[in-house]
């Protein structure tokens, strides 16, 4: 800058302006540094929020992956079991009796006294025993070893989420209850194995018995319906718009319409589903088929836009070559262009499916947030979905559901990461640079 000062401006003036630039340069560079600093701070903020988000979910969610269990030696008393109808036995008392062995000074025949002790166990304990006996009636009259889940409060105590040093009146367990638990712990019957209930059972009012099976199966059916509808429709629409549609008003309107549809709030799709599918067509409430239909309408624009981009990326030379050897226009598209565009289309579809998997609001409006304690056996049964299950659990007052909500979110995020990883793999493996 200083070297090319024109002659006629005079050396004095040129020196002064050079001086001016020099003097101000430090200030100007400082300004640039400040701008850069702001940029780095912004990125740092965004990334630290991501870290805090994931960190808080993991730290609250990991306790839910284990569940405190109590191992009991239960004598299956033939007197208490109705041999005609095995599901109608007094399994509660058998459990209480076996628990009583550890508390010699508690009178287990008294309901009130035994309640103090049996509250350590989940109310699902007797069901577990019942299922064991139902599966194998020869156990009647035998003494069996069975692991039953502890109830939520004691589970929290075992994991240290209920602190022993909080004053008794602020604690959800009194000292006597903790003493009972410690007695069992000293006897070595308390363990905390992997919480398989989280995957193998459906929803429950009791955190220790609640699982995601119903939600996972419901999400599976909804996504399947969504895929079956939106994939062919989306590809068909995209091929028509990209390869065949004449440039006229109608295709303009369709194009603007698709772009706008992609930005319509998801809750509005829920309103559409509620008014049209449920109210006018009388489809079943809470059913994955309706959820899948609604999600399909939302995913459609994503798939159309991704497919059009993939088709556009196929170079015209391919089309011209195929046309040149006598293929019809549809043969060109279906035999040559579409196979080459397929990796891009699949990538877009998987990303659309991942979005659909996380979508919550429209499913709430069609009632997929119902309390359902069994997994659906088909797309017409009432069900929940993974995100709506998270919403239900997040709303539940029991403390045990806080960590289970985080755990469910971690499961959902795992699925999303997996799907996106497939999409990224497809893109990097099959993408061609022309």
């Amino acid at each position, binding site marked *: 800058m200083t070297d090319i000062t024109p002659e006629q401006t005079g050396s004095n003036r040129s020196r002064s302006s050079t001086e001016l630039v020099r003097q101000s340069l430090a200030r100007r560079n400082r300004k640039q540094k400040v701008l850069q600093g702001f940029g780095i701070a912004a990125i740092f*903020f965004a990334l630290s929020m991501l870290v805090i988000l994931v960190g808080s979910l993991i730290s609250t969610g990991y306790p839910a992956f284990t569940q405190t269990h109590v191992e009991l030696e239960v004598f299956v008393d033939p007197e208490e079991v109705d041999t005609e109808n095995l599901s109608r036995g007094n399994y509660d008392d058998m459990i209480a009796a076996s628990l009583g062995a550890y508390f010699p000074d508690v009178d287990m025949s008294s309901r009130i006294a035994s309640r103090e002790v049996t509250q350590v166990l989940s109310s699902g304990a007797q069901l577990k025993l019942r299922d064991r006996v139902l599966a194998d009636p020869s156990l009647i009259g035998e003494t069996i070893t069975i692991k039953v889940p502890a109830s939520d409060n004691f589970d929290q105590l075992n994991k240290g989420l209920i602190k022993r040093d909080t004053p008794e009146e602020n604690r959800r367990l009194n000292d006597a209850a903790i003493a009972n638990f410690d007695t069992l712990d000293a006897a070595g019957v308390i363990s905390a194995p992997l919480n398989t209930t989280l995957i193998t059972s459906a929803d429950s009012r009791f955190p220790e018995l609640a699982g995601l099976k119903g939600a996972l199966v419901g999400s599976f059916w909804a996504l399947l319906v969504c895929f079956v509808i939106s994939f062919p429709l989306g590809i068909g629409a995209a091929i028509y718009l990209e390869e*065949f549609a004449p440039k006229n008003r109608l295709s303009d309107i369709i194009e603007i319409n698709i772009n706008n549809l992609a930005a319509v709030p998801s809750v509005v799709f829920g309103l*559409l589903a509620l008014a049209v599918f449920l109210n006018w067509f009388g489809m079943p409430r809470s059913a994955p088929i309706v959820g899948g239909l609604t999600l399909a309408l939302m995913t459609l624009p994503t798939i*159309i836009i991704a497919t059009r981009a993939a088709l556009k990326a196929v170079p015209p030379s391919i089309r011209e070559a195929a046309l040149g050897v006598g293929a019809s226009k549809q043969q060109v598209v279906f035999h040559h262009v579409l196979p080459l565009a397929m990796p891009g289309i699949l990538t877009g579809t998987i990303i659309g499916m991942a979005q659909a998997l996380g979508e919550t609001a429209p499913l709430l409006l069609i009632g997929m947030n119902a309390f359902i304690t069994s997994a659906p056996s088909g797309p017409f049964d009432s069900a929940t979905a993974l995100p709506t299950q998270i919403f239900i659990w997040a709303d539940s007052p029991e403390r045990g559901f806080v960590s289970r909500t985080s755990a469910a979110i971690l499961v959902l995020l795992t699925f999303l990461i997996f799907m996106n990883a497939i999409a990224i793999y497809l893109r990097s493996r099959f993408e061609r640079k022309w």
Partner: protein
Amino acid sequence: MVLFAFLLLFGATMLAYFVNRRAALSMRAGGARLHSLESFHGLFAALSVLVPVFVGILFWLVLEGAVVDLFMLRGLPAGTFDGLDSGASQLIVAEIKSIAGGRVFGTPEAWKIEAAERLVRYHRIADWLLVALVAITAAILLWVARRSVVEQFRARQGAERIVLGLMIFCATVAIFVTIGIVFALTFETIKFFQIVPITEFLFGTSWEPQIPIREDQVAAEGAFGAIPVFLGTIVISAVALFVAVPVGLMTAIYLNEFAPQRVRKSVKPVLEILAGVPTVVYGFFAVLTVAPAIRQFAASIGVDVAPNTALAAGGVMGIMLIPFISSFADDALSAVPRSLRDGALALGATRGEMMLNVLFPAAIPGIVGGVLLAVSRAIGETMIVVMAAGLIAKMTINPLDSVTAVTVQIVTLLIGDTAFDNPKTLSAFALGMMLFLATLIINIFALRIVRKYREIYD
């Protein structure tokens, strides 16, 4: 049974393909010069069986329920619905249906059980009828298609016409969805405005969406003035943008101009993760972490904050919008022609000055478009506010207070029982209509700005 009908159709389609293909092949073997390839003869036959029967089955399934109900109702004892309003007669129908489904509560009257049995019988008849109809029409279509295999028949053109028709149908589905949304919302909104005057909805300042449960209940006369609800949405969106716009813009500026290639390559996808996290997760994050943190901080400096403050919901929504704004701004900055940058640098501007005084102003239209799209995202965002914002509508613009939002009201009004004849349910559709219109206008506007701006430089 329906599955069987579909399987039958599938079988007929395959059969049509192979029969016609073989016919064409044997004609060719016999020395005939066919116009189309034999596979097109097969395809044409398959499509001309598949498409009409498939559409027929779908129509049948949509209409079957209503028609069977009608037959069942005609068989009911005369005078069953005399003197009953629509709700009570719907209840009777629902009871009969649940008996038919095997869920019997208590001991229903004999005529209800009889009606339920008839309903089951009619459904069985309808299912058989469907299968029979599928079989007959498929057979007729097969026969017609088989007859079409002659020398001059242009099977390729025929098949391609059908395929083109199918693709046009696919493309118009998107339009039907929009029409469906508009119709559903308009229909229910008009019903709402027949009960509650539109002026009260648009200009009323009190939102208490209750309806009297009993006739004589005086206290629970609802109020449907939506202004406080709109205000709540505006407050939360403003908080969100207050977080997202500066952070997103600064991120874009740094990544676009100053960041080393390696940093840019790794930071961008990580930021995109923020956009891919489901909103229900953000909602839980707001409740679990952000709201308590804000409350604790406020308590430590002696400020009183509502438990579900707009700050928590808006702040978390802002985090969600960061990648949205930063990627739009990045695109806009990259779209500015290289000559402008080079010119500024050649005149002696530092890179910071070039960015602030040349690139950024030139990119403003694109950035504004992106911010507008973010606004429409923010006002339509549902799960974060449902979980983290309040339920009570307040006339306040204080972000520390608890406010509600349009989407919160829609969801809470429609969760649980939904009878389509009371103002409580219908008001959710009126709110939805407002939401749809607002986002639509913003989107059209934003997309126009973005597109127009791109064209100028291209």
